[in-house]
């Protein structure tokens, strides 16, 4: 269970997130939607502390972290990050490492796994994402969709408790988008705990157990797709259907 309590984040004078309360259920897929600039991505980045919240608490399976504007210890940050896997909009693969090298980097450097063991597990992941034959390719030799699938495997290699996707297909054309979305869907069906920020409403409908609608830094409504689709709030209904 991942519990976010009273979380706020400001950049300078602008408050991006205002007193967010959110419980992310294990083995569920939570989709965060909302207009641009609403704070969706910042919320996701606060979960693995790429952004440090100004106030509030994060509680991942009993590991609690409180924020009060003071410096958070590096050790606490790293502990939390090891339990979360992040997939970025721009993939952010390491260009100087092969697909395999990208995937084993975390297990070897952070988890201190022996190299042959890390490689064995990486090959399994490569099979899972259907890119075993690309293990020795460098990122620039791969298509955007393949790069993002490798990035997903890299996140999975750390065996995280929770997988975070920040607009994972925004940088892809519709053709390549499909292969990434179907992989995420597969992971969702395998009951990984997933949080996705996306603008793809049809995809949100398909994979989500819970949808969070966020605007101006506040959670306006949350529930299943059907529940939100019958929300008395016309704006949410419009939003859900506008992008289909």
């Amino acid at each position, binding site marked *: 269970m991942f519990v976010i309590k009273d979380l706020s984040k400001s950049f300078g004078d602008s408050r991006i997130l205002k007193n967010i309360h959110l419980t992310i259920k294990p083995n569920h897929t939570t989709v965060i939607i909302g207009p641009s600039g609403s704070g969706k991505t910042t919320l996701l980045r606060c979960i693995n502390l*790429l952004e440090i919240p100004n106030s509030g608490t994060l509680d991942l399976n009993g590991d609690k972290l409180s924020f009060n504007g003071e410096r958070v210890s590096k050790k606490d940050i*790293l502990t939390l990050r*090891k339990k*979360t896997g992040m997939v*970025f909009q721009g993939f*952010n693969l390491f260009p*100087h490492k092969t697909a395999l090298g990208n995937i084993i980097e975390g297990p070897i450097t*952070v988890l201190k796994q022996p190299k042959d063991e890390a490689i064995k597990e990486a090959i399994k992941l490569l099979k899972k994402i259907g890119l075993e034959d690309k293990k020795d390719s*460098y990122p620039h030799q791969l298509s955007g969709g393949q790069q993002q699938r490798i990035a997903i495997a890299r*996140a999975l290699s750390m065996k995280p408790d929770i997988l975070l996707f920040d607009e994972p297909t925004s940088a892809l054309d519709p053709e390549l988008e499909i292969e990434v979305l179907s992989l995420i869907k597969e992971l969702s069906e395998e009951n990984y705990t997933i949080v996705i920020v996306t603008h793809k409403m049809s995809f949100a409908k398909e994979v989500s157990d819970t949808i969070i609608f966020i605007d101006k830094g506040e959670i306006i409504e949350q529930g299943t797709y059907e529940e939100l689709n019958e929300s008395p709030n016309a704006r949410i209904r419009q939003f859900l259907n506008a992008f289909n």
Partner: protein
Amino acid sequence: MQISDRILELIINSFWTILKPGLIYTIPLTLISFMIGLIIAIIVALIQISNLRILKGITSFYVWIIRGTPLLVQIFIIFYGLPSAGVTLEPLFASVIAFSLNVGAYSSETIRAAILSIHKGQWEAGDSLGMTYFQVLRRIILPQAAKVSIPPLFNAFIGLVKDTSLAANITVAEMFMVTQRIAAKTYEPLILYCEVAFIYLMFCTILSKIQSKAEEKLSIGQKI
């Protein structure tokens, strides 16, 4: 015919005498100073991109002084000046200090720029895997920054090969000083100085070749 035979003989006879100090002074002096300078440069660059305010001030001051004063003057201060303050250094040691400080100051800017040229997403990707600052730096950022900084670093390296001739001014018997001595004895400055220039040129040519190899090696996996 008589004259050209004599010149040829002079060139051949002096070649080894000039090359030898090149091998035992110029090359080691260059390599050691460059290595130490590179370490200084990396440390200064890391401080410059950090939030360590006091250290940042100190390193900025260091870069300002070194870049703003002539190398020859620095060498003189260290070798001829410091003894008045009670610090007497061996000429070779004094040259290593002067050259290292120089490489450190100039190359710190190169390395700082190279690190800053790496996309922020690379830091975040490393961070998100739970890597520490130094793990991200060493395994993700520096290998990519190295590629960017190879050409300007080799500029500094090649510059240093030639700058080591300044050590002749503080009694280091490197190539240039030995050449000066032979020239004084034989009254053939044109030939001998051209000869030593040629040897410097050869050293630098080898370095240029190494640069190409290094660039080739580091460009693996990266778009040109």
